[in-house]
């Protein structure tokens, strides 16, 4: 019995400055190992380490909340969080596994599997450059995505402007500016990736034929700022509507935290493999 008391008081000491609810959940978890207690513990630990102004965001418990962009958790702070989570849940988290955890939802799913002793969920929705190139029909030097991830109804990606792109020599002479038309292209490529890779909901079972996807039209396109070599474009598209053979997205591009471009509507045409040939309309 006294052993249990000591363990509880050590746990309380490590978790001091976490919300009381998280501490209670952790004490209960120590006894019951009930995976249902993991989310309140983990959210409480996150809350302890983030700045006061973003704590309400954690309390909303939205699975799409991004640890780095929305909560301001950098890699070192993440290590502090991991240490406390490991200590509290008696698990160990590998660096490899950490890399795939970007949202609150990822974290919950991962820890749920971990505490149940199951293998961590594979992160099929995070794609590196090689995977993107293996998926999209677009190829270098006309591929403007280096990293992407698909999340429910939206996809995010990034493209770093190296400055070595051949077209920058002429756009413009002595004044390299990433072309606005290619910003739209990059958003379009991310939308194509969404169509080809999304697993949840809108475009399910029948596989979209990569050779069938084409741009149809765009609307409400605005560029707010120019981007230059060494800028990184942070791209995001959200599916608005899909009904074969048309899919409509909205998209935006951020750079260093400010919006540089948005498109109210990007329309693509596509065909599923079962439906046979592509039903292309308009611009090819």
């Amino acid at each position, binding site marked *: 019995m006294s052993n249990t008391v000591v363990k509880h008081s050590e746990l309380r000491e490590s978790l001091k400055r976490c919300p009381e609810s998280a501490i209670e959940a952790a004490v209960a978890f120590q006894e019951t190992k009930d995976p249902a207690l993991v989310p309140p513990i983990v959210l409480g630990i996150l809350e302890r380490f983030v700045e006061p102004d973003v704590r309400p965001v954690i309390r909303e418990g939205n699975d799409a909340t991004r640890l780095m962009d929305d909560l301001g958790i950098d890699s070192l702070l993440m290590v*502090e969080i991991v240490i406390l989570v490991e200590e509290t849940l008696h698990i160990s988290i590998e660096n490899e596994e950490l890399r795939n955890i970007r949202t609150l939802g990822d974290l919950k799913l991962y820890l749920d599997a971990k505490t149940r002793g199951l293998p961590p969920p594979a992160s099929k929705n995070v794609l590196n450059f090689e995977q993107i190139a293996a998926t999209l029909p677009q190829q270098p030097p006309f591929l403007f995505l280096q990293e992407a991830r698909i999340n429910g109804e939206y996809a995010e990606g990034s493209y770093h402007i190296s400055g070595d792109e051949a077209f920058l020599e002429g756009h413009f002479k002595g004044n390299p500016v990433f072309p606005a038309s290619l910003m739209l292209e990059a958003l379009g490529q991310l939308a194509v990736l969404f169509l080809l890779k999304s697993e949840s909901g809108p475009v399910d079972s029948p596989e979209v034929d990569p050779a069938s996807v084409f741009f149809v039209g765009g609307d409400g396109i605005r560029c707010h700022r120019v981007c230059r070599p060494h800028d990184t474009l942070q791209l995001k598209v959200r599916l608005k509507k899909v009904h074969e053979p048309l899919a409509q997205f909205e998209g935006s591009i951020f750079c260093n935290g400010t919006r540089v471009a948005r498109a109210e509507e990007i329309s693509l045409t596509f065909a599923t493999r079962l439906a046979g040939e592509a039903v292309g309309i308009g611009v090819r």
Partner: protein
Amino acid sequence: MSRSVVVTGLGFATCLGLDAGAVLGALRSLRHGIVRYEPFDDASVPVKLAAPVPGFRTDSADAEDWTFPDNLSFRLDQLRALSPNALYATYALRQAIDASGLGEDAVAHPRTGLFTASAGSAMLTHHHIDRMKRVGPSRCSPLGIVASTAGTLNFNLVPALGIQGASAGFISACASSGHALGYAFDEIALGRQDRMLVVGAEDFTPETILPFASMRVLTPSRDPDTASRPFDRGRDGFVGTGGSVAMVLEEGSAARARGAEIYAEFKGWGQSTDGTHMAIAHPEGAGLARAMEAAIAAAGVARENVDYVNAHATSTPMGDASECRALRRVFGTGGKRPAVSSTKALTGHALSLSSIMEAAFSVLALHHGFIPGAAHLVDPDPEAAGLFLPRESLDEAPRVVVSNSSGFGGANVVTVFARHE
């Protein structure tokens, strides 16, 4: 064409106070900052006194437990990366920059550098290594190194201020922040930088102070009002202190052009090494004498214009005697001699911090036209015969001030400041 160097900002987190006004008052009235220090109450501790920094409490290894003045604030990730000395340094440096009137853009500028001196944090080093041994490296704070090691000031201050010019830390024990000042002077004089921020800092914790009790160099005195008495025959060791002092140095014509308030001119510096013992000063003060000669020559000032020497004297029997011999050798014992005092009578010894702290006191003396007296001196050591040791502060405006520092390893650094005309 040579470039002049001027002091345009001072910042203080010291046992004498948390701003130039408080420190100035203490130096003029010879009010000390030494107290009976509770953590030393244990019977096994042979030392009872220390000089804490008011308004700060950093004895926990958990930075989130610390208390510090309200005008300091940190994000959690910044706070958890701090050592106590980096906390003091942040306070002092921000104050010095405010006093200088330099804007954020001038601080975060390729022509502005930062030189620092601290011994790292013995308390946090012990805490993190102990935890690593108990629970393994994977369960230890990723910021342990940033907070603990001797680079902690640079690691913390560079990103906080956006420093883009030179940045380095200096290690020469109790002469460390003198080296930081001296090499910062060189950066500006050689045209490499236009502005240098210089900060010295030291934890105020038992882990930093008590190891000196093992060397028997701390005073066992229980009377805060007489414990630290440099040059007195009855001196019996130093009192530990910590905190931080920061200085903003600028190229003279640029400082004048922007209408900055100039506290004093930094005329030059000199250094030498005893080459004899790991911890004990050369008995004849030969090294310190050479450093003073070199500094006065480099500064291009006449020896007879030196009106005040802020001595290194820590109130230890051997160290003070050695400095007396060095002072006699350089300034003689008759005729016009500078006033000499060690302000460690008021502050105790701040180790890595002490050199810049005393340089800053010297700058205040030049700027406000007074000479700090030799507090607590009752019965001068015969070795001090012939030195002018005023018992009270003098209302005389010094023209040139020399500030001495010596550290373990026989390092001697001497800085020379002059009144700005």
